[in-house]
């Protein structure tokens, strides 16, 4: 070892297409989950009137179906000559409909991911589970980023007393027992997601604040900042227009890492049966179900949610890596 140099290789950042595709897929799932997997049709004409039940489901709950029938039996009962029609979503099963004849049925060609122990379709549950698993985390990370950038920016630009106060606060939060408080708030707030989002925000802002402050302390002495100050621009404008764009890389790296942490925390919470995700069927809650029925030889119920959680966490790590090398 002693006689040879460690080769320092500079590899250009690899542009991986899979991360981009996966990111797009997850974003689509979070934003438009009900349009992709739902038992209600995407577009339907009932008695000559067009309606879009799946779109209504996107913003709330879908209408139960025309007349006394549900949508699927209505679509089947339509005569061939009828002008009414129903276009189903790409995956025509929802996460809630149970099929008592197919309890714990394994994957097959018709149902590629099988059914869970109450006969719900696993593929539909995974697709629709993206929103409860990821949306909350994204909002929490956003809150943390805003808090962190504001406080870190304040500390980095003003220095002096403000810096001291923010740094003390930051040290306090680093010792904050996030797991316990997260569990307690998730249990107390039950179905409402405010508690979880607040704890995510509170526990992750220090990472943003530290990065922003550290970078600002060096950036503020650079020539272009002095020039901007000489032009008489206000501090706020210098921060927003001249300094923050420079910090895009570090901030997005931190955001990606925090997002990975948040996804792990959320799936852990739902695995423990706490928080809003446990009720709305996030991936962690499906994993818990899979663990409970694993001794029956059911493998598809833990494997697929595990893959979903893993791929989103890895995606966040890959994104962080990409921003770091850029």
């Amino acid at each position, binding site marked *: 070892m*002693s*006689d040879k140099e*460690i080769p320092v290789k500079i590899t250009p950042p690899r542009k991986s297409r899979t991360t981009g595709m996966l990111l797009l897929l997850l974003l689509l799932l979070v934003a438009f989950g009900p349009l992709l997997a739902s038992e209600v049709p995407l577009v339907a004409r009932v008695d000559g009137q067009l309606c879009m039940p799946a779109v209504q489901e996107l913003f709330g709950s879908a209408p139960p179906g025309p007349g006394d029938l549900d949508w699927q039996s209505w679509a089947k009962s339509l005569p061939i000559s009828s002008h009414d029609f129903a276009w189903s979503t790409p995956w025509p099963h929802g996460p809630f409909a149970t099929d008592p004849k197919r309890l714990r049925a394994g994957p097959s060609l018709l149902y590629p991911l099988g059914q869970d122990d109450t006969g719900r379709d696993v593929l539909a549950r995974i697709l629709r589970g993206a929103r409860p698993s990821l949306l909350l985390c994204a909002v929490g990370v956003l809150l943390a980023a805003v808090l962190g950038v504001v406080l870190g920016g304040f500390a980095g630009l003003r220095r002096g007393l403000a810096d001291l106060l923010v740094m003390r606060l930051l040290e306090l939060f680093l010792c904050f027992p*996030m*797991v316990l408080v997260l*569990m*307690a708030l998730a249990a107390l707030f039950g179905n409402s997601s405010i508690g979880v989002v*607040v704890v995510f925000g509170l526990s992750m802002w220090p990472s943003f604040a530290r990065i922003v402050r550290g970078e600002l302390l060096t950036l503020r002495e650079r020539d272009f900042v002095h020039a901007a100050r000489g032009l008489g621009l206000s501090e706020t404008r210098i921060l927003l227009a001249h300094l923050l764009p420079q910090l895009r890389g570090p901030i997005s790296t931190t955001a990606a890492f925090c997002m990975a942490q948040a996804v792990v925390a959320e799936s852990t919470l739902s695995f423990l049966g706490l928080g809003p995700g446990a009720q709305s069927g996030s991936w962690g809650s499906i994993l818990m179900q899979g663990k409970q029925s694993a*001794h029956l030889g059911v493998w598809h119920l833990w494997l697929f949610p595990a893959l979903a959680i893993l791929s989103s966490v890895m995606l966040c*790590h890959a994104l962080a890596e990409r921003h770091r090398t850029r």
Partner: protein
Amino acid sequence: MLRWFLVRCALMVPAIVGITFLTFLLLDLAPVDRARLEMLQARENGAPFQEHERAVALLRLQVRYGLVDAQTLQPLPVWTRYERWASNALLLRLAGPDEDEAQFWRRLFDAVPVTLLLGLISLLAAFVIGIPLGVWLGLHAGERSERAVSRLLFVLAGFPEVLIATLLLIGFGGVWLRWFPASGLHSDGIDEASPVSQALDLGWHLALPVTAMALPILLMIVRFLRESVSRAAVAPFADNLRAWGLEDRLLRARLLRAGLVPLATMCGSLLPLVVAGSVVVETVFSIEGIGRLAWRAVTSEDQAMVMTLVLLTSVATLCSLVLSDFLQRLIDPRVRLTR
């Protein structure tokens, strides 16, 4: 050095007050307080309350949980309640109104040793495996074998603790291979066996939980050490030592010492990781430790226990931070203990 130590310990007090007050404040944010919750449950159980009786019962509960002042019947502000909790906590009166102190402490002392055992063995295992692995990776940075191992570690780092524990349980705890027991820490009827076989039984039961808990810590140690050792290996002082013709073995010891500095800083942040891990691992493997206790406290709205656990973990975290600073000063001659 004694002065440094005392100053650090004195600085812990405002930190503990801050953390517990913040927790108190956050728990107060909840839309439903305990008294109301109990009333809701009473209504579900079909208690035939009149409107007036219900209000009186609610008030009585609120007084009991210290939400409302007993004399004036006015709701107490959160800081007054915090002050009461803190003054009780100073006298180690931590139990809530529903149970006596002895029972509360017994619950705590049943759980703490279990998690302590689990956590210490996991930390030990992580350090014993992690330090040589991290140093090896750091010394061979850029080589093909290092890149392969690092890529594997990168993939493993993406595994959440829940997933590791579940996969270990499914893989080795009874579904696929029946190598290890799936739950608990003792076999039935082991109490009559000899101490040696009791210890062996405990080790057999601990294998899976310890693996699940040690893996994230191990990965963190390896990542830190690889970075710092590979940076130290190309630092000017290493070149200098090589130019002197220092033996490989001695050089490696120097590099390890230089590389350990960031690791010492990191040690302080390991404890929250252990607590987080204990919640998950103890749930998956049905072990009655602190994590399980926390879960029970949280689901049964046992605020006294939640606050106690927050206090306990934050004190432990702060102590470990002081310890890690101390270690850093011990290892790194550039940082002096006098300040």
